[in-house]
């Protein structure tokens, strides 16, 4: 383990208001640290707060109290636009439903974060070409998501998350929408690429096999780490 944590979560708490009732607390006073190059699984049953924790770590939502520090930057203190920029540069997200842009080809989907970050055209092409090779989809680069299989779509989504070389990769049930064989292939690919690049990976899953491939597991139960 490295000495300095890449991600420090300190005493975060998240509750959602409910019409006519007291707010529903989803995450209770939670703290943990993640170190560079670590692969960590966040596990727990449905309703345990996994997705909420994932949203907080990705900066898609903000905690009511506490702080989340990534690369020495408190992501909760950033305004929406700065956070969007920071997320684009430092956090890669892989969704269960892939969430590809349906009207863009595989290559265009992968290029998108680089284009948003205004990379130069040549660099965009080089990086896209490389990740397409890494996910073995060079032959499908000009296909639309509707022309790809589920596994291929998730590989495009992985490539899109990796193309900016983020510090932290967050995966929300990355194999949840795939059959077991395809899911396994995608998981193999994901872990191979993470290992090769030395990235830090947090996987939110209730799939024990997938969680077992991570170096460490954080188990959530009713919003609290066990």
């Amino acid at each position, binding site marked *: 383990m490295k000495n300095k944590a890449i991600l420090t979560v300190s005493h975060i708490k998240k509750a959602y208001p409910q019409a006519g009732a007291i707010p529903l607390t989803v995450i209770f006073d939670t703290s943990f640290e993640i170190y560079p190059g670590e692969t960590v699984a966040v596990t727990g049953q449905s309703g345990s707060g996994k997705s909420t924790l994932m949203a907080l770590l990705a900066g*898609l939502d903000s905690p009511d109290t506490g702080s989340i520090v990534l690369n020495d930057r408190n992501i909760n203190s950033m305004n929406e636009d700065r956070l*969007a920029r920071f997320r*684009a540069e430092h956090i890669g*997200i892989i*969704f269960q439903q892939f*969430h590809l*842009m349906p*009207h*863009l080809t595989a290559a265009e989907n992968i290029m998108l974060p680089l284009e948003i970050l205004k990379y130069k055209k040549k660099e965009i092409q080089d990086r896209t070409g490389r990740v397409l090779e890494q996910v073995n989809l060079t032959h499908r680069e000009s296909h639309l998501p509707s022309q790809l299989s589920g596994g291929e779509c998730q590989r495009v989504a992985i490539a899109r998350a990796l193309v900016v070389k983020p510090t932290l990769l967050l995966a929300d049930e990355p194999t949840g929408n795939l059959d077991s064989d395809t899911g396994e292939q995608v998981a193999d690919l994901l872990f191979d690429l993470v290992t090769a690049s030395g990235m830090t990976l947090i996987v939110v899953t209730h799939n024990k096999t997938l969680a077992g491939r991570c170096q460490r597991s954080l188990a959530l139960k009713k919003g609290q780490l066990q």
Partner: protein
Amino acid sequence: MNLWIRLAGKELLRNRRFSLFFIINLSIGLVGFISLNAFNHSMETHLKNNLKEILTADMAVYSSRPLTPPEENIIDTVLGPQRHTARQITFFSMISGNGISRLARIVAIDDAFPLYGSIQFEDHLPVLNTKNSSKPGHSTLNGPTPTAWISRDLAVVLNVKKGDLLGIGSQKFQLDGIITATPTGAVTSLELAPVIHIGISRLKETKLLGFGSRIRYTRYDRLPLGTDIQQITKNLRTSLLPLFEGEPQINVYNSEDVNQNLGRVFGYFTGYLGLVAIVALFLAGIGTAYLFRGYLNERLKEIAILMSLGAARLQTYALLLCQVMLLGLGATLVSVALSFVVLPLFPEVMKGLIPPDFKAIINPGTLGLAVFMGTLGSVIFCLPVFVRIHNLKPLVLLQGNSPFQRASSDTQIPKRWGPFKMPTKQRSLLFISFIPGGVAFWGMAMAQTRSMERGTLFLAGFIAVFGLMALIGRGLLILAGRCLRTHRVIPGIALRNLFRHKHASISCFVTIAMGAFLINVIPQVKNGILDEIRQPRGLRIPGFFLFDIQPEQLGPLKKFLKEKQLKLTNASPLVQGRINTVNGAGFYEGMNDRKSTFLSKFQQKKSPETGTGLRGNFRRKNFTFSWREKLDASETMVKGRPLSNTPWDFESNQPFEVSLEEGFARRFHLEIGDIMGFDVQGIALEGRVVNLRKVRWNSFQPNFFILFQKGVLDEAPRTFLASIPQISAAEKMPLQNAIIGKFPNISVLDVNQTVAQLMDITQRLTLSINFMAWLAILAGLVVLYSIVRHETRTRAWEINLLKVLGAGFSDIRRIILFEFGILGTTAALFGILLSLGVSFGISWFFFGRLWHFHPGYTLFSLGALSMISMLTALMAAYRVIRQKSMGLLKSI
């Protein structure tokens, strides 16, 4: 920025159906507006470029009598020695040729006329002067032999050709040329009677210039290039005033005045058309916003993806703005293309009312306005929808948080984002987002009506109608909610759908109702007017209207007609005079002090006679007075007491009794009891208003604004107006010929011809207004289509469930038909009912209660709109209805 434009373009291409509908919808709304703007601009340009030609001079001085030497001297002095002068005398008289007679406007001109422009002949030959008389051409009208030029229409009516003789009064004129265009006729060919040109030097020989003939003497002047015409006009008016002790008897006009007058006439008409076009655009705007709302619902996921990848919220706004503006631009291009089809129809519809050589074109200014309205307009329409993404967070993409997983492929915005369940800040934003649209609508209404007051009134009226329809729609939905317990399946489901999709139902209801209102209100007003012109209730319009009858001709004329077993009716004396004072103050000057009502203020604004400024010094003071033993059938006393039957005693020192037409009294703020000072042929007289009359002018009987007590005008020089009852068409021409054969100075107007002309104009004007109204309906149908399409797609799973539970395609179709049949019929019904009320109000207010109910058109539009609503809904829902339930199940 390239990325966002590229993304915008790709998304629009992928959503071709949406893009196409958006463009079609907005272009329908824009086409009327763009066409009208192009027409207006072309007309303004035409008038501006031809002002001098239309007036035929830089300045014109009009008078109802020949100018006196002192007046001529002042004009000569003010205008300076470098002027060129032409003269014209015009009046109405009968002319005959080839055994046919016809009322014509005699235009007697000198050889200098026209000072600008030229008279065009059918044979394209020029008018010859003495120097080039050896060449082929037309001799001047003031040459050694009496010659005349007439229009092609008149030549056809009289069945004459070049060289034939035409009788005008006591002189015969040889037809020397058939005119195709004159500078004065460059604006409108609409005339009470066709024109015949003769030489001014020949006028005496006709012996038509008797006492009481209504003649207009015009002096035209052309000034050196670079002269400040406005300043010269001002100087001339000021110089002439002392001659008339501040009460001028002549009018001075320049080309700018011509422009203002013509602009005002076209302004009224195109202003109204413009307002209808705004409504069409507004309805199209509703459709646009609805379409965009549906599109945005489907795009929310992609926007969230972009945000999760690092796009700032402003960038996502930019992406959507880019899409809306691209579509707006597309709609602009389509509407401009459509305008090329629509625009040539304007001159056709308004033939006779606009210059014959007028060509409407789409100028760069209109094109710029179209692009501006298309792009910015579409953004304004869609602005309220943008608020829906204000709170969108990429959080929704995560498992367990996604609203996109809830229903069908048509993703739903969570209820907490619905407009009525939004947080306060967002609700405020939503209301703010409507402000630009409201301001733009208001601005456009003011621009169209060229008045802040009328524009605001229109906006208020529009909001009132819109709000009323929304309230009625809501009320009906509540009623539908109470009928939900019906045991009949199809009506039950249809009513439930209407009730549970309130916003969509009310939007459809209001849109159809507004369309129904628009297409009914103008025809209802028009029908009333046409009926009344054609056959006034309780009255018979005469066959002929006779004027310029000299007192000594009255007896012989009656005898002459009696021999032909005809009767001269309503012979009414006509005395010219002036109104100098009312209650001791000047007629116009004291007007503001006199009691006025809202109605009179409104009428005053409409009347050019009561304008202010420099022209105010030259306002009309000459009026025609008459008297009669008893009121005619076409007039009724509405206030006061009848005029005394006792002849007024000149020595009594008491004011005589005066009766006023109620509209005249309203316009000049006159009331019963007011003392009016008159000048009749130089004699000062005083009268007191004792009653107000309502006159049905469409009776075509001799009627007057001002009637005097018996005995006042007995000694005054006068002429007579009279009418002859209807006779058969075959008898008309022989009688007309016989009258002018015996009484050449009397003018005879064929009332049926005038009625036909008025009806033709009314029909054509209504046609153009209805065209705009149908555009509004079309825009409304696209709205209906968009809403139904959106609703059926969001209800796809529900429809599918019905199918799974055993409902056939025909059952689903019947549900849709029932649902939108009810919606379309009730909306059309209430729109029509409102149009009946408003048209009654308009007819009552502006046209003196000329309102007739026309059940045929009403029932037709009710049936047509109901059918169209059902068919449109069926078309919109077709894809979902025909889909197999398996396919739909997959999308859940």
